[in-house]
């Protein structure tokens, strides 16, 4: 009997007797004989806890995590510092082991935390409403397309090619089900040309661009938003929360929605998940939002309280007419985001952006490679490599340094471009080391 199971033999006997059956097997006789599984599961033998941990540590030891390799990998997931208070509260059993707060009187804490998260996301993005989180930075883009489809009645999706390739791939996977088609606008020298975006946006439901974009370059975001709107498409910015202490909020430059991957604020890298996608919009879109939304209300005695609200949007009420099929979301990861934002405060968020940007500027000076694009940047810099970037990565890694992402993996024309990410956890000395190793391997 597994240590996770609580019944004694005596309990079991008493319970079977109360039910009026002779054995546990009798309970499964309701399963037709032809579909009963009557052998033992062929899975590895049970491990006691100490042996289990040994097995897991053995597996983990074969991964080159960022405590073992000096890493400049980014491209959507970043090695930012996660404050200790995040660990404290994500291991509080009440937050960790609660379900979706359907019964608000049992769940005021998590409901209030989501309300505070929604407020923080609105402040960062300059929007009026935020949901309680989406799965990740890719699926919130598909959600935005579904909203735009119903808001505009149009079926065309415009994506900047400088939007993260995985975001574009997910939108393309979802689009046929929505009855939508996708067109992409190529970049010009590392950023998106507003005139080309405007042309593509005619008759489109939505135009999504990324700020800073996937090459690390700062897009002319206000011009792109205006260009999309000119064609009648909803302008949507895919943004990095860690940039929003220094970069303008999408709501301030005319976007209808702001979306993105929240990992950079409060989540570990965890080989890609789970993290939280955020989706915020202008107030007029509130009834088309997917997923949970928490609202303020009062109780019988007039005291303030919080509940899941506008549930008539949702699948458990509206079924096939719902705004989304989403039920499980990423609340715990969003809570980590909220705690981190509160820990940073407005000054800390600004300093975070300034430190990353200063390190990136220093890397531009120090790394002995040409810049791939002559554009302003935030925390990632694309360098041109003299040999294919994959080779540079392989050679640099032999020195215990991971220099970044070879963009040729996703952009066939950019085989000689290396994307280097700088977070506040790297130091100027780390950048010097990167520069020295690159110097050595490209000599």
């Amino acid at each position, binding site marked *: 009997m*597994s240590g996770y*199971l609580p*019944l004694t033999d005596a309990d079991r006997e008493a319970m079977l007797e*109360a039910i009026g059956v002779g054995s546990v097997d009798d309970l*499964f006789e309701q399963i*037709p004989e032809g*579909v009963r599984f009557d052998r*033992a*599961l062929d*899975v590895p033998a049970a*491990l006691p806890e100490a042996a289990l*941990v040994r097995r*897991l*540590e053995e*597996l983990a030891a074969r*991964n080159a*995590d960022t405590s073992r390799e000096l890493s400049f990998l980014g*491209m959507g*997931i970043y090695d930012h510092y996660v404050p200790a208070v995040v660990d404290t509260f994500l291991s509080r059993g*009440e*937050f*960790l*082991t609660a*379900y979706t707060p359907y019964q608000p*009187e049992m769940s005021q*804490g998590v409901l*209030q*935390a989501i309300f505070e998260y929604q407020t*923080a996301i609105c*402040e960062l993005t300059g929007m009026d409403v935020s949901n309680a989180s989406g*799965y990740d930075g890719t699926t919130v883009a598909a959600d935005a397309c579904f909203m735009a489809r119903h808001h505009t009645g149009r079926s065309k999706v415009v994506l900047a090619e400088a939007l993260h390739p*995985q975001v574009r791939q997910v939108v393309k*996977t979802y689009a046929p*089900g*929505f009855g939508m088609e996708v067109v992409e606008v190529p970049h010009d020298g590392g950023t998106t040309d507003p005139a080309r975006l405007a042309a593509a946006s005619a008759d489109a439901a939505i135009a999504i661009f990324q700020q800073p974009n996937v090459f690390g370059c700062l897009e002319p975001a206000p011009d792109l938003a205006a260009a999309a709107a000119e064609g009648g498409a909803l302008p949507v910015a895919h943004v990095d929360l860690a940039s929003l202490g*220094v*970069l303008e909020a999408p709501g301030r430059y005319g976007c209808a929605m702001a979306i993105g991957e929240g990992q950079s604020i409060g989540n570990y890298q*965890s*080989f*890609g*998940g*789970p993290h939280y996608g955020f989706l915020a919009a202008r107030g007029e879109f509130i009834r088309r939002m997917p997923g949970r939304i928490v*609202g303020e209300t*009062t*109780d019988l005695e007039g005291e303030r*309280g919080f509940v899941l*609200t506008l549930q008539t949007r949702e*699948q458990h009420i509206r*079924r*096939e007419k719902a705004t*989304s*099929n*989403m*039920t*499980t979301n990423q609340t715990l990861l969003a809570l980590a985001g909220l*705690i981190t934002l509160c820990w940073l405060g407005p*000054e800390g*968020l600004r300093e975070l952006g300034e430190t990353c940007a200063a390190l990136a500027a220093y890397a531009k000076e120090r790394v002995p490679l040409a810049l791939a694009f002559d554009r302003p940047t935030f925390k990632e810099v694309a360098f041109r490599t003299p040999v294919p970037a994959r080779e540079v990565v392989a050679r640099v*890694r032999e020195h215990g340094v991971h220099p970044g*992402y070879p963009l040729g993996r996703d952009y066939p024309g950019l085989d000689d471009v290396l994307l280097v990410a700088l977070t506040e956890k790297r130091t100027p000395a780390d950048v010097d080391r990167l520069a020295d190793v690159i110097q050595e391997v490209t000599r």
Partner: protein
Amino acid sequence: MEVIFEKSKAGRRAGRVPAYDLPAAEIPADLARARPPRLPEIPESELVRHFTALADRTFGIDTGFYPLGSCTMKHNPRVNERAAAIPGFRDLHPLQEEDGAQGALEMMWELQQILIEVAGLPAVTLQPAAGSQGELTGLMLMRAAFAERGEHGRTVIVTPDTAHGTNPASVTMAGFELAKVATTDRGDLDLEDLRAKVDDRTAGLMLTNPSTLGLFDEGIEEIARIFHDRGALLYYDGANLNAVVGRSRPGDMGFDIVHYNLHKTFSQPHGGGGPGAGPVAVTRALEPFLPAPTLVRDGDVFRLDHDRPKSIGRVRGFAGPFAVFVRAYAFMRAYGPALREMSDTAVLNANYLLARLRDVYELPYDRLCMHEFVLSARTLKREHGVTALDVAKRLMDYGIHPPTIYFPLVVPEALMIEPTETEPKERLDAFVEAMRAIAAEAASEPDVLKDAPHRRPVRRLDEVKAAKEPVVRFAFEEQEAPDRIETG
């Protein structure tokens, strides 16, 4: 209780960010932030107290019994948390070269092998982020398979009237039409109604088995025949898989596509709403269509295969919610083949509660149940004006989280109860006593139920008001945020 924004005072802070002796980077003026976001300014001590107070006002499975039907609220073993926090997992970048991620990929491979054995289907993707995304993925797989066969006329998905709301919502999002099938008096799918609704336009069925009534569909073999004979496919919603692990396999029942909820059956904590994971298993015939990349084993080396020309594409970023995989893997390895005893105990616990409550609450389907069951408070409503909602709210005063209520829709005043294998007999007995006491209160002092709860941090909340005048963010005082403070 104050929201954290009300505790803010200008000039305070908790965290400090490293500042290096470097020149400031230039951000073009038209792209730079004009006004800082109004995040709270609060010292770490007060931040900790705030979130401690919020935790205190939240009820988790760690706090007490949580028989929320359909949600499988089982204990979340703490070694799983330790596992997910090992730096080699936690601090691994998803775009790390495969030679630097072999341990992660091998763990995912082993997890896939266990999932394959549990479902009785040969191929699996770990990518979907949640059960409902698994559903959508499954429907996309159907569309891709029929498109390849040139059968573009298959546009209809059949679901029972007991289905979770996610099923019909997924049908819409995937671009299919919905056909609903009735439930018989015994709680099974109505085969006659079903036969009338399956034709050449049918793409497939979405079914939860055991159903949301907690009943194993006795006609499952015939159901599978009806669809397969018409060339249609069967999708298994794994929400209730906790009932049958090691006892019956969806693949053996005739399902072509299965999703698992790692956050239900395999103990990923629910986190107040998420995260989850919704891996999908399929038949060999459907394997080419699985989301890319897929995980491949070449001898002792594991890699991600992006070259999948027939794939429906990517449904989520990277290789899926990895830390959920670590926890589920740890859970499964702790059990081994005794996973079957997990389901045995879940079913035993549910039937015990059913046996002890059936004389005080109405039982709409008089059968043994699987891992959960549905009672009705209809009699209490008729006789005393007390609703399922009132019963649920009153349970809170007994320190028990209410069951799922008003679902499935085919049962009026439904109370859907799922104890899981976690609960010892004494917890079950305490629940029985509470439910029986509440039924007695309904007769003797119904107002105590109608005003419940009485012993929570708030009284009953006005949900209608919240929806009518939505307040979904804190209302700062009507002043613009102060101009950015230049600190030199």
